[in-house]
């Protein structure tokens, strides 16, 4: 993807007194990308999100939004930003409509365009039915939606969402995911979440941060490809015995799972599953199942945020 760079983060550090929360963070985000921002609690995720949103100043380094430096010209840079903090920033005493009108004006939408912007944001976030109710009387899910509506009301180039699906019911989660997916087409989205499947379905890139450092950064495609299938589960009515399976060309390991299923490891070879299915038909095994087993994002996450990083285990035990 060759969209223009909307967010560029260069050598950003942030410390709170002695504690270094974020160290030497670098990344770029282009138009049309959805970046999944992952990390265990206390990894520096929220600090980074706050810095990107301009509500926290970095101790060192540069953040530019659409080429505008967030520190030098905060007013101009923030106009390109929409931010949903962890806690939806809503005023309980206002109705949804009043709240969004305030947010629209706050983001310098001209008076004449406010109504249209409000209607669009309410419609996109499914708030039209509760437009005149007080936010304080709405459920957590609706408050969350009001928070999202606030973040997109001024059609910002960059939308930053900190755990947007927390507290929503499954149907709302689906709707919000669709919304994020839609936003990802012509904005760029930075999404922080603990729900890994969410990242897998929504994001085009993943960034894992641990103890203030980026420990993993890659596009979703290469994550899929690089960590791709090297194992598969075979199920058959008349499953051959372990020995026969181990002797098949390309197989490097066999593990019998019981119930007519076996897990095969094989040397990286895209042709292998096809050859296996031919062998199954030729041998009349009664093929039931042939499932590639991918390394999940969860495995990657655990791998990068626990064992390898020095001293990590100690902190997690605490």
């Amino acid at each position, binding site marked *: 993807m060759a969209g223009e760079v909307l967010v560029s983060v260069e050598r950003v550090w942030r410390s*709170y007194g002695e504690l270094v929360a974020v160290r030497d963070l670098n990344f770029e985000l282009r138009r049309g990308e959805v970046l999944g921002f992952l990390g265990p609690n206390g990894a520096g995720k929220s600090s980074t999100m*706050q810095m990107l*949103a*301009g*509500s*926290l*100043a970095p101790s060192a380094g540069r953040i530019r939004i659409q080429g505008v430096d967030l520190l030098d010209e*905060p*007013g*101009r840079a*923030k*106009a390109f*930003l*929409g*931010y949903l*903090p*962890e*806690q*939806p*920033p*809503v*005023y*309980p*005493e*206002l109705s949804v409509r*009043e709240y969004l009108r*305030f*947010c629209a*004006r*706050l*983001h*310098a939408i001209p008076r004449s365009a406010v109504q249209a912007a409000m209607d669009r944001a309410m419609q996109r976030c499914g708030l039209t039915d509760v437009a005149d109710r007080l936010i304080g009387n709405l459920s957590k899910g609706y408050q969350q939606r009001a928070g999202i509506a*606030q973040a997109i009301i001024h059609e910002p180039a960059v939308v930053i969402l900190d755990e947007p699906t927390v507290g929503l019911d499954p149907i709302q989660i689906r709707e919000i995911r669709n919304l994020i997916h839609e936003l990802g087409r012509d904005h760029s989205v930075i999404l922080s979440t603990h729900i890994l499947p969410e990242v897998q379905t929504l994001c085009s890139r993943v960034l894992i941060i641990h103890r203030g450092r980026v420990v993993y950064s890659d596009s979703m495609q290469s994550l899929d490809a690089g960590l791709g299938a090297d194992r598969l589960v075979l199920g058959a009515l008349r499953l051959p015995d372990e020995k026969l399976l181990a002797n098949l060309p390309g197989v490097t390991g066999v593990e019998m799972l019981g119930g007519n299923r076996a897990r095969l490891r094989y040397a990286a070879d895209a042709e292998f599953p096809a050859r296996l299915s031919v062998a199954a038909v030729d041998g009349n095994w009664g093929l039931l199942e042939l499932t590639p087993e991918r390394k999940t994002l969860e495995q990657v996450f655990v791998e990068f945020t626990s064992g390898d990083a020095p001293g990590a285990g100690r902190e997690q035990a605490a």
Partner: protein
Amino acid sequence: MKTLEMSLVIARKELQSLFFSPLAWTVLAIVQFILAWIFLVQLDAFAETQSQYAMYQRTPPGVGDLIVAPLLSTASFVMLMVVPLLTMRLIAEEKRSGTIALLRSAPVSTTGIVLGKFIALLVFLALLVLLLGAMPLSLLAGADLDLGRLAAGMLGLFLVAAAFASAGLFMSTLTRQPVVAAISTFGLLLLLWLINAAGGETDTLTSWLSLLEHYQAMLRGVFATGDLVYYLVVITVFLAFSVRRLDAERLQR
């Protein structure tokens, strides 16, 4: 003037929040009730003593001295107690509920945020002072009233209340707990109010610092530039402190 425009947006929202809560109405009602009581008591006393004064003095003290000045003087003390309740939520509540993030991520400067909050308070306080002013004005029906002196007194009351509000706004930036903000504002104001008690009559520094001294001159009908400057300086200093404080939070914590 983008900052000003933005602060008006914030001020509008703040007034909306204020008048949607029972707080504003309660404050208006109770202040009005207490001051109306004082007003009637003074009026009664005036009616009784008027004939006695007339026997001894060629120019007896009028309604200005006997009704308006005591009323406004009491009003300033009521303000001392009421303003902390109005200012306590301003920033502390935003911090506690996390809505401050909304203001910070919006293209609004910290100055814009602080000014917006302050403007909203000024509007409310102006309303309070005007409602109060209606009482002495009703005397016009049956007595001579020095309108210039009343105006000076009301303006003085407004300035005092505005100075209270700026101090309260600053206190509200220091904490996440509105109640703590209210109590510390009250303490600070009382200190500033009574600071001249320390030095007695001769100490010019403490009496210059006292919020009370400057107000009393205005109640006498003396509207001096020095007093006006004093209040403007107090207001500016507290607003600047608030801006500094909020900026500092963004930079280092």
